[in-house]
């Protein structure tokens, strides 16, 4: 007997959706027959706006592309401008950038942890982890003046030097966060019901993962060890000692474990950065931002964000304003073509969990 199909609109107004987007589900009983992603609810025309702004005015725009962790965007644009211009960055700025990037990765993982547990119905973890994430946001606030949007990394270096006593504060926060991790293990990662919910759900085919454009933790959750930080080391990642954790399985559980292990790596990277950070200038002399001509050229830069490879294709035509900045967010592939495929055959209970574990973030799909 064939069950009657119903159409279920998962979003845009839905507590389980990750941001403002919609997944249109065709459901037979509890099983999904067809999924269709609808995005565009957050389209602000950033790429068009950046063609209207100068290069430096584009920095406040790019950080709004990815709300949970804006820094990879700034990093990308800064590195693109530097690469086209051939501008040198002081060593200290590179270390500060790595520290900021890793802090933002850690913050994004804490937010993800809250989301993953919240969609599974474990409401204590989001309360804890979002609260703990705030300690990292406090560091950002002291360093950059903003909790969410930092506008800190820019072409030629970073905007400000570290305030006095900042490295100690970072180390203290890292100690605190590291001491909290075992508690999350007990409550979430070792929780039998969470494991039951996560194992074997939302499986990505290992053989097809690369071809399908899977990046970041979902790719490493398939047991494939690739990370932009290792493949094409930017800033000072080649001088730091860290491993890229992988996990076999390709399901929600594998992706969760990859992220869990990466948190420890991030903490260790931040400690190394603070230990090795040299003195000196934190930015090189740059032209007046209102009169900053970037020579013609093009480049593709990429950064490893918490959700995978973040790429910018930047074209300059030698004028004050960018010719084209095209953003490739990791969620662009994860949230549309991949999600539509792995949702088929899944249970409706797992839609929100799968979306969260893939890190679907609509603002970077539509910009």
């Amino acid at each position, binding site marked *: 007997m064939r069950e009657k199909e119903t159409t279920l609109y998962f979003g845009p107004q839905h507590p389980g959706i990750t941001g403002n987007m919609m997944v249109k589900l065709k459901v037979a009983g509890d099983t999904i027959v067809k999924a269709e992603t609808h995005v565009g609810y957050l389209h602000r025309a950033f790429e068009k706006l950046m063609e209207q702004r100068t290069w430096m005015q584009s920095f406040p725009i790019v950080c709004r592309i990815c709300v949970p962790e804006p820094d990879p965007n700034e990093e990308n644009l800064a590195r693109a401008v530097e690469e086209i211009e051939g501008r040198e960055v002081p060593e200290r700025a590179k270390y500060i950038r790595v520290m900021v990037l890793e802090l933002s990765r850690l913050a994004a993982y804490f937010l993800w942890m809250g989301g993953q547990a919240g969609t599974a119905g474990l409401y204590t973890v989001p309360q804890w982890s979002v609260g703990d994430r705030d300690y990292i946001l406090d560091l950002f606030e002291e360093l950059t003046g903003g909790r969410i949007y930092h506008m800190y990394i820019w072409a030629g270096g970073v905007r400000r030097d570290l305030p006095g006593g900042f490295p100690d504060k970072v180390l203290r926060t890292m100690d605190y966060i590291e001491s909290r991790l075992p508690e999350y293990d007990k409550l979430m990662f070792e929780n039998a019901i969470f494991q039951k919910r996560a194992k074997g759900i939302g499986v990505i085919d290992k053989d097809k993962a690369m071809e399908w454009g899977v990046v970041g933790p979902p790719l490493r959750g398939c047991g494939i060890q690739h990370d932009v930080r290792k493949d094409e080391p930017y800033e000072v990642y080649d001088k730091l000692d860290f491993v890229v954790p992988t996990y076999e399985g390709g399901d929600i559980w594998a992706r969760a474990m990859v992220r869990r292990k990466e948190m420890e790596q991030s903490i260790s990277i931040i400690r190394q950065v603070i230990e090795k950070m040299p003195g000196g200038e934190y930015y090189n002399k740059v032209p007046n931002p209102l009169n900053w001509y970037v020579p013609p050229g093009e480049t593709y830069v990429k950064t490893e964000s918490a959700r995978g*490879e973040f790429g910018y294709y930047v074209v300059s035509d030698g004028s004050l304003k960018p010719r084209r900045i095209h953003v490739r967010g990791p969620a662009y592939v994860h949230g549309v073509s991949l999600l539509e495929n792995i949702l088929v055959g899944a249970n409706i209970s797992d839609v929100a969990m799968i979306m969260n574990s893939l890190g679907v973030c609509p603002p970077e799909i539509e910009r």
Partner: protein
Amino acid sequence: MNKNLYNENQTIEEIKNTFHTAEIKLQRESRIIVKLRSDLIPPFLSYAKNYLAFNHLAHFSCVDWIEDNEFELVYLLYSYEKNIVVIAKTRISRDKAEFVTIKHLWRQAETYEREIHEMFGINFTGNDRLNEFILEDWDDIPPMRRDFNTIQFAKDNFYTRPGREDAQDVRETITKKSGEKIPDFAKEFSVRNLK
């Protein structure tokens, strides 16, 4: 960082032997730019994917060169084995904005094509899902084209609250309204003084 460019040179050699008309440039380590005739793009992509192990479609972009009356389509392929990004570019006419789909090679290309169809109005033959993706009920010219004026569009369609017609200095406005003094140190950072 000085790395030997063995992989890069070998890849360039292989591409050169297969596609004689390709203009190949080594931009820097692990970035190769390949310019091709538009009809060679599908065979090139298929060749790169199947024989050169460029199996990750990192990005697919489009640039509007309105002064040449051309669109530039940019395919960025990445090889995990060789650790190289190949930037394959081609130009098509702006008047007859049409190209073929590469959906059969990478299924995620469908999403990129939908976006570029919507933003630039390029039609991809063979892609049957070029429906509304990001915009809804859009009836103007595709917004990412250079001749679309977003400021004019915003002015015509949306009510704008008065008060931001010119680049006002926030501090001066506050002073005018409430009589609060601008501190001296802040004056030199005022927008007017920067000009």
